[in-house]
């Protein structure tokens, strides 16, 4: 065991919180204007703008729906996963 329980960040040890997901955000790339509004609000920091479109890392996305809620273009839809 680590001395005094001191640990180091290791993303490989991260629980894949994608398994929490109940609803899944789907970016409608045709609607997405790449405005980045959703990016900083995602609690899991899973959204990146790739080629001017929002892209979600489903390994960690918990499906909260915050992104969909804040998107000015209504480009994200929450679907039952």
């Amino acid at each position: 065991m680590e001395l005094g329980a001191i640990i180091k960040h290791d993303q490989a040890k991260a629980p894949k919180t994608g398994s929490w997901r109940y609803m899944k955000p789907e970016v409608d790339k045709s609607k997405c204007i790449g405005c980045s509004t959703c990016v900083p609000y995602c609690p899991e920091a899973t959204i990146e703008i790739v080629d001017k479109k929002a892209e979600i890392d489903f390994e960690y996305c918990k499906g909260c729906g915050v992104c969909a809620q804040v998107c000015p273009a209504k480009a994200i839809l929450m679907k039952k996963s």
Partner: protein
Amino acid sequence: MNKDLTKHHAPGHSACAGCAFPTIARTVLNEAGGPVVVANATGCLEVTSTLYPYTAWKVPYIHSAFENASATISGVERAHKILSQKGKVKKETKFVVFGGDGGTYDIGLQSLSGALERGHDFLYVCYDNGGYMNTGNQRSSATPYGAATETTPTGKQSFGKMEVRKNLMEIVKAHGVKYLAQANVANLPDLKKKAKKAFETKGPTFLLVFSPCTNNWKFPTSEYVKIAKLATETNFWPLYEIENGKYKINTAPTDPKPVSEFLKTQGRFKHLFSEKNKPVLEEIQKMINTEFARIAELTGN
């Protein structure tokens, strides 16, 4: 995962889906502009980010207990000072505490007060979700008047919490802190500016950041931004700063919405919309008007 946003606090943490504080933590840390050490009081942020064997923290991080984060950072900061003097550490470093409202307004207040008085060079960030959320939603002295919690439940003889919120901003200000500000997770540019200013100020600084809790305020997981916005739009949570004793309101609604717009979004206030509790609702609106007027007056405008 988003690289820019995960330089300090990474996903894999176990905060509730739709929780607000991860956004606060990483936004603040991004403004440190260099090495930063974090101390964290026991609470939701701490418990959800350091579940052995995984830590979400990519920067040096220490959690000791619930009530002593400020004393803990005092030790770290002074260690840095002397070890720098002795040439044993080289890098200029910033020091940040994250504490929940319980760990700040209540059980950690004395530790904070002592650290402010001694003048350590650190930023204290209180993410305020108005209650002890980690333990399942008991009242704190930050819980809004009228809110139902597990220890201030509604009942035949109760309309929820009957005491008004402690005014932490004023208490911290009374310590002669050079820069302190009230911010909101919904307004990130404002939060960033404030964090930056705080980091640039020598000595203790303080941020009080509004942080909705989907789980215990009882609203859908998708709503934290909307609800946080409403808090400022109703003047429930004004955005202001106090710099060298001078008050400044950063942005305020020109035509504030009635506070009920904010309250009705959350289960914890549901009971206030009964006929019986109308007076409580009115009382709350009055309190909010008074407090906003008080701050506005202090800005000298």
